[in-house]
Each structure stands twice: as C-alpha cells, then as structure tokens.
C-alpha cells in the first residue's frame, strides 16, 4: 500500500458546509418571519379599529381622554383617518415597514427612538437570564444524573418547584432576603452589573426548572443509548461520556425550547422591570397600556414580534448545527 501524506488524507468530503446546510432553512425562516410580522401588523390595525368610538380618540387614549379638537384633527390627518379604510391599512403597513410608529401622546416623543432606547436593557436582561437558566439547568441535570435514583428524584423535584415559582412572588422574596435582609443587592435596579443580579435571577430560576426537566430527560435517554456502551468499550470515562456524547444529545431539545423561552422572558420582563423599577420595554409597555398610549403599544408589539422571530430562527439554526439529522 502506498502511503499518501497526511495532508492528502484530509477529508475532502461532501460534508455540507454550515452555510449550505443552513442557507435554505434560514431563507424559509426569514420568509415565514416576514409573513408573521405582516399578520401581527394587520391584527393591530384591526384591533385599534375595534376600540369603540372614534379611532382618532382611541389613538389618543380612548374615550375619556379629553383630547382637544386640534389634537383629534392632527391625529386624523397623521393616520389618514379621513381616507378609505384600505388606504389607511396600506399607510399603516408602510409606516411600520419604515419603523415609523408615530408619536406617543403621553410621552410626547417619537415612538421608534423611544422603544429602541428601551430595547437594549430588556434584551440584556433576557439574554443574561437565558444564559443563567442554561447554566443552572445543565448543572442540575448533570449533577442529578450522577447520583443514581435518589439524585434523580431530588433533581426532578427541584426542577418542578423552580418551574412553578411565580415571578412576582420570587422577586418579592429575593428582595426581602437579599436586599432588605442581607443587604447584598439593591432593592431597585441601579445602573451597572449589581443592579442586574436580582432581576436576572428572578427570570432565570423558573426557566431553569423547565429547561432542566427536558435536558435531564434526554440526558438520561442518551446515557442509556447503545452508542454510550460503545464509547465505554473504547475506554471512555464518565466525564468523556457526558461531555463528548450525552450532553450534545441532551442539549438538542433544550435549544429548540429556547425559542419559546425567549417569549416567556419578554413577558416576564414586564413583571420584573416593574417590580425592580428598571427601565425597559416591559415597563414601557405596562405604562403605555395603563394610559392607553396606542402608538406605543403597537410599537412594542411589533418589536417584540420581530425579536421573537429572530430568536426562533436562530434557535432553529442552532438545533440544525447540533443535530444535522434534523436538517433533512
């Protein structure tokens, strides 16, 4: 046998490049996302028209807002409310497509820049909470599958309890213990990392419970799989079994779940930002709903939908990278 050099032997394989494997589903994801955004925009248009009374009045805070006649006329002109309904609809789609959500009457500023300034804080909160939830869930799953039956039931019990914790209650307890009791963290969110700790923990703990349950279940399945026996038969140790084989199998459903989790985190941000008096999209939404600031509400709905779609596409792509079989 001639002995080709090692460089000749590098895989020249039809190993589909990441782009090739992801390109098509990515396109489908983006196409689907555009469709969903259109559907959400249409829905908000219809909903605003369903508010009883004058749509101009509704835009300015609904009946009882006592908007002046000039303000009503200005709103009618801005939203084209004197035009036929189809023209109004197309105008709104056009405005949303250019990220023009109009003017907040309660805050008297443009909606789009206002929301963009709030988006960063909320995204940071959500991403950190998701990361913490993953760390806690993985640690819990790995630890509880090591200790036999007792460890497994203990881990399972912890996860169920964590998944069932209501955020407002958890936030209150955390403030009572760690702010008012121990004084480790500020009770309201201050700028800087220290102010993020309690809000992130509040969001992450219940999510870690959900994630932990799916991860542990698939981890246990993977550890029983025949390929683990093969790996052991090669002399692989417990650590190698978990890190090289089982964890990847266990992560697949968790990653798929993370798309859903992001929606959970955004809605959780409404509660958490309010309790910790932290600026962000969630708190802006709550305030806008309270004072019926319709342009702001529409803006938050659209931006949240957009963020949700992006995260879903990303988690789909990540699932495909982890498990190439799912790309078929």
């Amino acid at each position, binding site marked *: 046998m001639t002995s080709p050099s090692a460089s000749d*032997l590098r895989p020249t*394989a039809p190993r589909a490049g990441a782009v090739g494997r992801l390109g098509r589903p990515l396109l489908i994801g983006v196409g689907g996302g555009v469709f969903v955004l259109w559907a959400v925009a249409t829905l908000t248009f219809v909903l605003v028209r369903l508010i009883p009374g004058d749509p101009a009045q509704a835009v300015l805070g609904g009946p009882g807002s006592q908007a002046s006649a000039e303000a009503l006329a200005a709103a009618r002109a801005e939203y084209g409310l004197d035009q036929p309904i189809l023209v109004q609809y197309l105008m709104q789609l056009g405005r949303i497509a250019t990220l023009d959500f109009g003017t907040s009457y309660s805050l008297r500023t443009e909606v789009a820049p206002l929301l963009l300034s709030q988006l960063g804080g909320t995204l940071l909160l959500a991403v950190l909470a998701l990361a913490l939830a993953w760390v806690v869930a993985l640690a819990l799953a790995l630890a509880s599958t090591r200790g036999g039956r007792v460890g497994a039931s203990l881990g399972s019990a912890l996860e169920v309890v964590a998944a069932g914790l209501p955020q407002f209650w958890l936030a209150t307890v955390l403030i009572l213990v760690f702010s008012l009791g121990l004084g480790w963290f500020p009770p309201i969110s201050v700028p800087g990392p220290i102010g993020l700790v309690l809000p992130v923990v509040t969001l992450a703990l219940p999510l870690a419970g959900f994630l932990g349950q799916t991860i542990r279940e698939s981890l246990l399945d993977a550890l029983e799989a025949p390929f683990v*026996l093969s790996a052991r038969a090669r*002399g*692989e140790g417990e650590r190698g079994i978990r890190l090289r084989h089982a964890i990847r199998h266990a992560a697949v459903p968790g990653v798929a779940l993370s798309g859903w989790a992001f929606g959970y985190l955004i809605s959780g941000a409404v509660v958490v930002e309010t309790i910790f008096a932290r600026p962000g999209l969630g708190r802006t939404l709550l305030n806008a709903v309270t004072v019926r600031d319709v342009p702001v509400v529409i803006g938050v709905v659209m931006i949240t939908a957009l963020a949700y779609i992006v995260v879903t596409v990303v988690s789909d792509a990540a699932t495909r990278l982890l498990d190439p079989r799912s790309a078929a």
Partner: protein
Amino acid sequence: MSGLISVRDLRVSFGDREVVRGVDIAVAPGETLALVGESGSGKSVTARALLGLTGPGAAVTASQLDIDGRDLRAASEREWRGVRGSRVGLVSQDALVSLDPLRPIGREIADTLRIHTRLSPSARTERVLEVLREVGMPDPEVRIAQRAGELSGGQRQRALIASALALRPPLLVADEPTTALDVTVQARILDLLGSVTANGTGLVLISHDLAVVARVADRIAVMSDGRIVETGTVDEVLGAARAQQTRRLIAAIPSGRPRGSRLRPVDAAGVIETRPRPTAERTVREETDPTSPILDVRGVSKAYPRRGTEPLVAVDDVSLSIRPGETLGLVGESGSGKSTLARIALALTAPDRGEVVVDGESWSTLRESKRRARRHLMGAIYQDALSSFDPRLTTGQILADALLVAGVRDGGGRRARELLDSVGLPSAVLARRPARLSGGQRQRVSIARALATSPRLLLCDEPVSALDVGVQATVLDLLDDLQREHGLALLFISHDLGVVRHMSDRIAVMHAGRLVETGDAEAVFAAPQHPYTQLLLEATPTLPQSGR
C-alpha cells in the same frame, strides 16, 4: 497460561437473580470462540463481563479472570478503562445506534486513539484511515467525515468494527454483529471478522444463530440459562450435539429444512422430530382449483419523486399471483421494493401503473369505500409487531377491535379466546398489554388479530426478522399449522433465504424493484438462474450437512 483470556467460574448477578452461573471461557490468540444461545441465556452479559461493562447493578465474581495476562478480578473502574479499547474491543449489534449519530465516524474511531495514546490529531487521522481501509470501507477519505446515518448498513458495521480495531486489541468481542444486516452484507462482515483473527487477534463471537457462527468459529460454546451446556469444535458440536439445548438450536434453523417439517418439536422430552408431516391435504388443495388466484398482481410499477434527481423506482413492472392455500416467498434485500409491493397488494399505496386483482375481482382500482367491504379477505403481519398495536389497548381490546371490523360482536370474548388459542396463547394474555409480552408472544397476538376477519390471504412482511432463531422456529411452525388448518394463502416476504425456502411453495426474487426470478421453490434453490439469486444463495448461512 497461554491463552488470551482465561475465565473460570464467572458469575454475574443482578440483585438476587443470577444470570451467569459459573461460566468457563478460554480463547487462544487467533482463535474464534462462538458463544451461542437463545435470548436470555446470559451470553451478552458474559460478553460484557469480559470488558467490565455489566453495569452498576451487577455483582461479578470469578475464580479466575485473566485477560491478556492481567488479573482483573479486583480491577478498579480505572484499570478496566485501560483495558477497554486497548486490550479488548467491542462490536455490538446495530451500528446505527452503536455509533453516536451526531458525530462523524472518524471522530468515533479516533476516540480510542485519543484515550489510550498520545498520538497527534493528524497521526490519529492517518491511523483512522488505515483501519478503515483494513476493514474494507470504500472511499475512507470521504466516509471519515460522515455520520453513521449517512452510511449503508454494511458500511456502518465496518466503521463500528474499525472503532474496535483502531488500537489492534489482542481480543475482539462481537455481540450479534450481523443480526441487523442483509444476508449478502452479513456474509461479507463475517468474512471480515474471520480475517481479523488471521493476524493473531482472538475473537469471541456472540450469536443466537448457529448457522451464522458455523462459518467463522473454531470452537462453539452453547449457553443456556446462565451456563455453558456444551462446548467443542464446530464439527463436534454440530455433528454430534450432546446437549438437548444444542439440538434444539440446530433443529430451529430453517435453511435446508424441507417444507412442512417442524422446526420446534412439540415433544416435551426433547426428542427432535424432523420428519415432514403428511402433506395429503396440501396436494388435494392444489388439485382443486389451480387456475384462479386469490391475489393477482399485474404489471404494477411505483416510483417516488426525489428532489434534485431521478425519481426512485421502488417497484418496476412486477407481476405475480398466489393461489388459495399456497405460499409465495418474496425474497430481496432492504431497498429492493418488496415492502412497497406489499403495500400495493394491500391497497395502502396506489400503483402508478398496473393493477391488483383479488379473488377474481378488481381491487387496486376500487374506491376505498367500496374496497373496505372486501378487506376482510386479507390479513397482514409485520416485522415490528409492537408498533402495530395501540400501546394503550390490552390484547383483548386489540382483538375485539379487529373482530368488530370483521362484523363480529364478541360479547363475552369467546371468539377472542378462540383466536388466542389458535395461535397457542393462554387466555390470560387477554388482559395484558402487548408491551408486557415477549417478542414471540407479540407476533402471535398480531397473527391472531390478522386471523380475526377469517382472511383467505395472509401477507407476512418480515414476520420473524426481529426474533431469535428459537422463537422464529415456533412462529414459523405456527404459520405453517394455520395455513394447513384454514387453507390460507401466504405472501411471505423476507430477506432471509433460509426462512423463505422452508416456508414457500414458489419463490419470487426481487432486486432493485424488479422480479429477477420466479419459480417452484425447490427448482429455484436447486438451480438458480439469475446471478443475483445465486449470490443470495451463496451468502445464506447454512449448517454443514453433518449437522443434520
């Protein structure tokens, strides 16, 4: 001590259940020891004990446990890890699940090197390619980056063998390494395993099928109920079997056994009766109405569109017919189109061209609402009986359901008990769910369900492929009995030529969607015309004639 492994009085128990009860094993370099037994005989646990992989719940003791010169009786997990992969390699059954489906096979094979050596990554790659070539993997440079799911069954099994051989361990343990494979692939993998021992590697080959191991083994040890009941050279064991369990295993092998002879003796004393039973009834039946077939498949074709390439022609202009009371054996390897043909016969898939006629009337061209009234004419059983049952239903409910379709209101469950009785199951099974039954019992329940509508044709798609030889023998005997009693016609589909030969009056050989050969069973076997049939016939494991 000269042997590679030398084990004395090996005992393995789980709790108070002792599954290996005093086994002695010795293997010399270059020797192949076959460990044969039915499922539950303890052979797999014995094999795993040779790698210290019996699991955390097992208690293992032995008066001697020497592997490649090391005493491993009191070995720690760490010591065992040093042995696994470097001194003993393991090849297990289904490579699709025995190789990590998310990792390229090259990584899996290189793991053995990563764990036990300090080779650089490029040196590892070089060794992986070398061992892939040794096991006869085509295009190793391409395959090394592919995952198990992207390879064919034979290539996968080669990759798994390569991962066990990467470090050239002096001992290889292969646990049913060919059970999931087609016969021609099985023959090539067995040849490969045989060649591994040529350079002095010792091989412990575990199988439920004596015919498979007869080809490569030097010595055979027959296991039953946790003990080795007989051991000797292949000729000794097959030629002059002393233990009753060995004789049962030999009798269970269908290949080369005449049509109608029992594979599993009824006789409780263990006397093997291999004479064919009287076939008077059968001759009469054949004479009565040889002209009108119960199933007539006329020139059917079926193609499936594929993205970016030519459509896949699964069935290509196939014609065949089955007369009442006759068995037609349909042989072919996976992907040959035999299951698609079965679906077309059952009118579950519509053919692109051609027609199926049942009992002289149109069938495949009918609307389903019209066809339903005639569906009782056909019953079907499949390879995986368990997945063909609703997991929430008990056996009684499953049978009641089938009887309802047949228009029988089975109030007291009398008919269901009769059906169970006809397949040799006690009525206690009625209250149990199929998941709690054994593989053979499940297949019996599925046969009982198929019989509920009193069909005239029973379509059997790989009915015994998932069963071990002993259970297979009892199911084949049952099908034979039922055919006799009810005058059933059978369309018997299998990749196993030995099974088909034993069951069939006529044989049809399918290859790449086409029928390449049809004819009287004995004639086809005596003088196969098509090269593919000859290839299949050569690859089918048989016992040497001295075994009879």
